[in-house]
C-alpha cells in the first residue's frame, strides 16, 4: 500500500465526560479544546469548541474512537474532519495511558480513518481521498500522523 504524509494533527483535549455503561459498552466523551495541524499542503489550527472524540470501550477490550473536529487552515478555509478508529493493547500499556504517562506508541494499536469535507476549492482534493492515521496518545491529547492512501 502506497501512502504519503498528509499532515500531523495534534489535538488538545478537555476533561472527559464519563457517560458510563451503555448497551454497547462503556462510553466516554472527550471534548476538544484546540490543536494544530501541519503538512506539506496544508496547515492551521483545530477550532477550540464543538469537536470531541466519542469513545466506546467494547466488551472485547477494544476502544472505538469517533472523532469530529473542525480545522481552519492558515488561509481561512474550514475543513470538517470525522475519524473512526480503534485503540487496544496490553493491559499495562492501556493502564499507563490512562494514568497520563508517556507511552511508546509502538507498544499498542491506535489507528484511525480520517475523512475530510470542505467547500474550499484549494482543498477540494481532501474530499476525494482516503486516509489512514497512526495515533500517539500523549498526556495532553492525541497526535495523529495522517497519510493519504495513494
Amino acid at each position, binding site marked *: *500500500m502506497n*501512502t504519503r504524509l498528509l499532515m500531523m494533527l495534534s489535538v488538545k483535549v478537555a476533561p472527559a465526560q464519563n457517560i458510563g455503561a451503555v448497551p454497547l459498552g462503556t462510553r466516554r466523551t472527550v471534548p476538544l479544546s484546540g490543536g494544530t495541524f501541519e503538512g506539506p499542503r496544508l496547515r492551521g489550527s483545530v477550532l477550540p469548541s464543538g469537536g470531541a472524540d466519542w469513545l466506546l470501550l467494547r466488551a*472485547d477490550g*477494544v476502544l472505538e474512537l469517533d472523532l469530529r473536529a473542525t480545522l481552519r487552515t492558515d488561509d481561512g478555509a474550514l475543513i470538517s474532519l470525522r475519524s473512526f*478508529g*480503534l485503540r*487496544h493493547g496490553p493491559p499495562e500499556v492501556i493502564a499507563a495511558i490512562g494514568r497520563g504517562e508517556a507511552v511508546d506508541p509502538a507498544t499498542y*494499536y491506535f*489507528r*484511525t*480513518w480520517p*475523512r475530510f469535507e470542505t467547500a474550499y476549492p484549494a482543498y*477540494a482534493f481532501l*474530499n*476525494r*481521498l*482516503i486516509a*489512514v492515521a*497512526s495515533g500517539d496518545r500523549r498526556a495532553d491529547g492525541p497526535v495523529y500522523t495522517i*497519510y493519504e*492512501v495513494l
Partner: protein
Amino acid sequence: MESRPLMVLRLVTSAIEEVGSTPRGGLSIFPVIGGSFEGARLRGKVLAGGGDWVTANTDGTFVLDLRVTLETDDGALIHMAFTGIRDDVNHYLRTLPRFETAAPKYAFLNRLLAVGIGEIQPDGPVHVTEEIL
C-alpha cells in the same frame, strides 16, 4: 504507513438498481449475489444478500457503502462493511473495510482497520484488502 495483505475479495453483482436522483445525490445499488475471498489467514465465499449503495457526488466522484456477509471455508460468518471513494477520472477506488465476527479464530478481524484498493474488472469488482499495521 505499514500494511500487510489481508485478502483479495472478488464480488459477483447482479443488474444495477438505479434508484435515481435523491436528496443526497444519484443513488445506484449494486446487489451482491456471491463472490470469493482469499488470503493467508482466511478464505471462503461471499454470501448473496449484500450490496454496495453508491451515491454520486456533485464533484463527479462516488461514495461507496457496501455490506456483505462472508463465510469462511470452515463455516464462520463474518460481517463486512466498507465506505469508500470512487474517482473514475483519477482511476482511484479506495475503501475502508471493517469486519465483525463472533468466531474466536477470526476475532483478530474485530481489532484491525484495513484499506482496500478496488478495481472494476469485466467479471466484477475486485478489492485487494490490506491490514493497517
